């Protein structure tokens, strides 16, 4: 137990790094993903095509490859991120946005057509009916899939460990290497920290889901 006490500051910092990585990327991905979803249902073919291309590309590429590109690939087009943390946030949000887009789109598709028809009938245009009628409803049905996208994102932050971000997984490796006799303890501590994020999220999402459930 003194082992845990000794390394508490390290674990706490790593936990906060993981959490902020997840929260920041989650916010960026939510915005970007919603824009992409709107593009995918838009009347302009080029936007639809662009969004579809984006989603298909990122859904079919391993996150690690995205990381490699942003960390060591984009320098060849003379771009650089100011820090490795920001690189990680960028990789995680670009990747997750594709999944957010699909979740939101499935939500848009789940809104009964009558709603959109009614919105159109009272004279709202595409932008208005989407932003005032369809999307607010879509976000309600979309809570469960968005929730699981969030949980997946929280877990995916672990890949940043391979790209110079000292998150929980990086600390797991450091401690495991330095304290081979305490391996079980190291794993318990780090897994518990991850569970704290993922299980709490799952629980909150469950509550939110029941609150927002639309009675039809």
């Amino acid at each position, binding site marked *: 137990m003194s082992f845990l006490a000794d390394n508490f500051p390290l674990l706490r910092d790593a936990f906060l790094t993981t959490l902020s990585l997840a929260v920041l990327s989650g916010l960026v991905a939510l915005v970007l993903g919603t824009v992409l979803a709107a593009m995918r249902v838009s009347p302009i*073919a080029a936007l639809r095509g662009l969004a579809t291309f984006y989603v298909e590309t990122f859904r079919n590429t391993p996150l690690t*490859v995205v990381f490699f590109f942003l960390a060591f690939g984009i320098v060849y087009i003379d771009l650089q991120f100011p820090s490795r943390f920001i690189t990680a946030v960028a990789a995680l949000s670009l990747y997750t946005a594709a999944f957010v887009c699909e979740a939101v789109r499935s939500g848009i598709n789940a809104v009964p057509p009558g709603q959109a028809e009614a919105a159109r009938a009272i004279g709202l245009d595409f932008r208005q009916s989407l932003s005032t009628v369809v999307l607010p409803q879509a976000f309600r049905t979309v809570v469960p899939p968005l929730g699981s996208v969030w949980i997946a994102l929280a*877990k995916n932050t672990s890949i940043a460990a391979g790209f110079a971000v000292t998150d929980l997984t990086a600390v797991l490796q450091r401690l495991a290497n330095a304290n081979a006799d305490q391996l079980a303890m190291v794993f318990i501590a780090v897994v518990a920290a991850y569970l704290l994020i993922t299980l709490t999220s799952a629980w909150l999402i469950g509550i939110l889901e029941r609150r927002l459930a639309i009675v039809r």
Partner: protein
Amino acid sequence: MSDSRVLFDLPGPRARRRQRLGSLLGALLVLVLIGLALWRLGINGQLEPERWAILFDPATNVPQRLLEALGNTLEVAAVGMVAATALGALLAVGRLSEHAWVRVPVVTVIEFFRAVPLLVLILFCFLFLPQVGVSLSAFGALALGLTLYNMAVLAEIFRAGILSIDRGQSEAAYGLGLRKWQVMTFILVPQAVRRMLPVLIAQLVVLLKDSSLGFIVGYLELLRTSRSLVETLNFSFGPRYTFQLYVAAGLIYIVVNVLLSQLAKFVESRTRRSPRTTGTADAVPTGAASASALGPAISAGPASAVVLSPGRPGEES
């Protein structure tokens, strides 16, 4: 609302002109961005054909290495998939058990493995298991990690599948005097598996992508191999071929995964039409609406989210 055309009028001549302008501008913007990227690449000499030739010239050993690595990736993904499917089906049945002493541990296992990062699971298999006498190679640790994680995801997919089968099926089977395990093994699971086939293939894409985490244990799959080639060639030639090798790895993943996704779509359209699967409720729950229509039994908690995103489980990694 699968037809999003409800959202806007059929465009008239003026709107059509506006849209065409919009499309043009959008396309132009994309082209400009691509052009900019290519221009920078060109300035940095990244487009020289000689740099790309390395990917196709057998004398450099690079194509062979990449092919071999793709083989390694597919191998570990295949092993993981088969094991995860079998265990996932078992866990799904266990979770639907009426006995709490079966259900509770199964639920715990499923929830645990879904809540822990795959990377940590792989490290656990690689670093910790040997300490308790289970020695695993890099391949073994990666395959086991992938199996543990995906079996939990697949268990939830199967459960949704089993629950989506019309109650009449099991009632009829019980009526014939079949026992519970018989109903499960002969009536429900086979139908659920067939119905979930597209989702299963989609999950294979996820698994294939996840195999790239093998870098952490030094398994030479596609990505680690490209990286290793980068390191080797960097040493002899400087960063001459770095960009090309990353692009190659990325493209191979995309091509293989898009092919798999197309297969999933094809299988989905086949199963839709097949009279053997359409006899029961709606086809695979592909949208949030159809899934939540399955009733409170599966929308109790975030677990249900697994089947909600279209065509592919929401559980990406």
